[in-house]
């Protein structure tokens, strides 16, 4: 009798421990999935607002290289007041957040982090619920209400398409030109240094206001720019950890 009781008690104990362990593992793993994994390289962009003239070359090059519907902009440039006599502009690509709300809310894990910190989209997996579009505090995502057919007006003057057009019914956003980074790395090039491996918007910027590189490399131009300049990022208060940093135009008071 006693032995049977003990056995039952032990069985219950073991079961409880097992459930607790399973739940704990689940909790830990789910917490880990809401933060970008830290791979060998961590791409980031630094935009110098004192150099930006608001010419929107970045937007045009982006439209061409990623074959974007002219109604959609992955990279927008908005005017934001003046400093002295100069207008100040805020170019806004995807921030590729360390804790990206869009990844967190995606019910089917179509939005995910790459090891290098790029927030990517699996268009085949996406069900078009647009949660990510609403969750993004930067308005970086746009929905494909219709299939993009016909000519892309930005081609060929501003570049050649390098990726497939997105289907109807999925949101899309800036990908840091992952195709250029991946192809460049495969050829032994350094993104941010060799133009073939660098995002199109960085290459085309006539004033060199954009820098791109690896945060893990202390000698990369972005690391140096972050080290040598006061920088801010958009909506730091939300704790999203954006990987796009801005060097404010001279005279701008940090808010």
């Amino acid at each position, binding site marked *: 009798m006693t032995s049977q009781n003990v056995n039952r008690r032990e069985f219950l104990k073991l079961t409880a421990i097992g459930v607790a362990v399973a739940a704990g593992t689940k909790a830990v793993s789910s917490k880990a999935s809401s933060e970008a994994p830290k791979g060998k390289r961590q791409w980031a962009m630094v935009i110098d607002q004192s150099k930006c*003239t*608001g*010419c*929107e*070359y970045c937007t045009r090059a982006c439209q061409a290289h990623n074959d974007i519907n*002219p109604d959609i902009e992955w990279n927008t440039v908005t005017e934001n007041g003046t400093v002295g*006599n100069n*207008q100040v502009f805020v170019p806004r690509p995807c921030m590729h957040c360390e804790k990206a709300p869009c990844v967190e809310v995606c019910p089917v894990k179509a939005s995910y982090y790459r090891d290098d910190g790029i927030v990517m989209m699996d268009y085949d997996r996406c069900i078009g619920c647009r949660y990510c579009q609403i969750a993004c505090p930067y308005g970086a995502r746009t929905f494909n209400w219709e299939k993009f057919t016909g000519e892309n*007006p930005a*081609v*060929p*003057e501003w570049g*050649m398409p390098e990726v497939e057009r997105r289907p109807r019914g999925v949101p899309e956003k800036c990908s840091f030109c992952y195709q250029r980074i991946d*192809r460049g790395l495969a*050829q032994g090039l350094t993104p941010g240094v060799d*133009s*073939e491996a660098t995002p199109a918007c960085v290459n085309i910027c*006539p*004033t*060199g206001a954009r820098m791109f590189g690896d945060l893990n490399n202390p000698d990369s131009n972005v690391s140096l720019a972050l080290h040598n300049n006061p920088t801010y990022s958009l909506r730091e208060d939300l704790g999203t950890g954006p990987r796009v940093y801005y060097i404010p135009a001279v005279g701008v008071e940090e808010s």
Partner: protein
Amino acid sequence: MYSRIQRLLIALMFALVAAGVTLVAASAQDGASPPAKVSGTSSDCTVCHTEYQMTWQEGAHGKAGSDPAFLDEWTKQGKPGACLVCHTTGYDPATATFKENGVACQACHGEAPADHPKSPMPVDTSPDLCGRCHSDTRFGWQDWKVSTHYQRGMNCTTCHDPHSASIKKISGPRGQAATTDEVSALCINCHKEHSMDFPYTTHNKQGVSCVDCHVNHIENTEDAAHTVPDHSFNASLDSCNTCHAQQMHSSSDQAVNGTSAPLPEPQAQGANLATGTETTKQPEPVSPVGFAVLAALLGLAGGMVLAPWLERWYQRTVKHNREDDND
């Protein structure tokens, strides 16, 4: 008797033969521009890159070896090989041959990688590449180097589209039409401080764009065929004098009387400014197709006239043969 349709068919056959022969002959004569063809030409590239074909072949780079103005001047100077270094692609001075007429894909991109399109075409977008032809005597690098554009690290392709070999086109925000003419729109795209004044000036209303004053075309005395656009972008007194020469330093009695020289007509101003485009206003040579069409018409007429004789000759032959057969 032949029916009308049969006669027309015979006439059409004449027309076709005449047109074909003329087209071949005229195309062969078109070799006023030196002939040479090797594989790996732009036609290979445009199989996939159709987007670039039209802008390139209509632009100055595509026409560099066939532009009538160039061919005239080149022939006048005794067809020097030195010109072909830049006006053709892959010119070899040793054999005086070249791969392709005009500034074709390979001139800037070089050879395609073996695994293209997996590997992209290489291209050097630095001014050094453009400078191989647009050198100091034909471009004015000294002027360019004092410009703010150069000092801020901008390069040729910032403003110029290398494929169409012209200024990049800028439309207004979100595809809206530009507020001023195209060249000024490109400048104002960055120089936004002038977006709210220049479009409303008399200059803009008269069709004077930014580059008309800020890029002088300096005559190159050594090489009459080329003018040097002043890329320092400084507007000089010469720029003003292009139009306002008669208003400058009017003589004292005029100043006292309050009469000044009449303003030149706006059209004349435009014509003065358009010196850069004058070279393109050469008469176009008649294309081989034009000759062929003319020959076709002649052939058609000839066929119509000859048809009755042909018919008679044919019937006689047939009759003759039948008689032979009967024998």
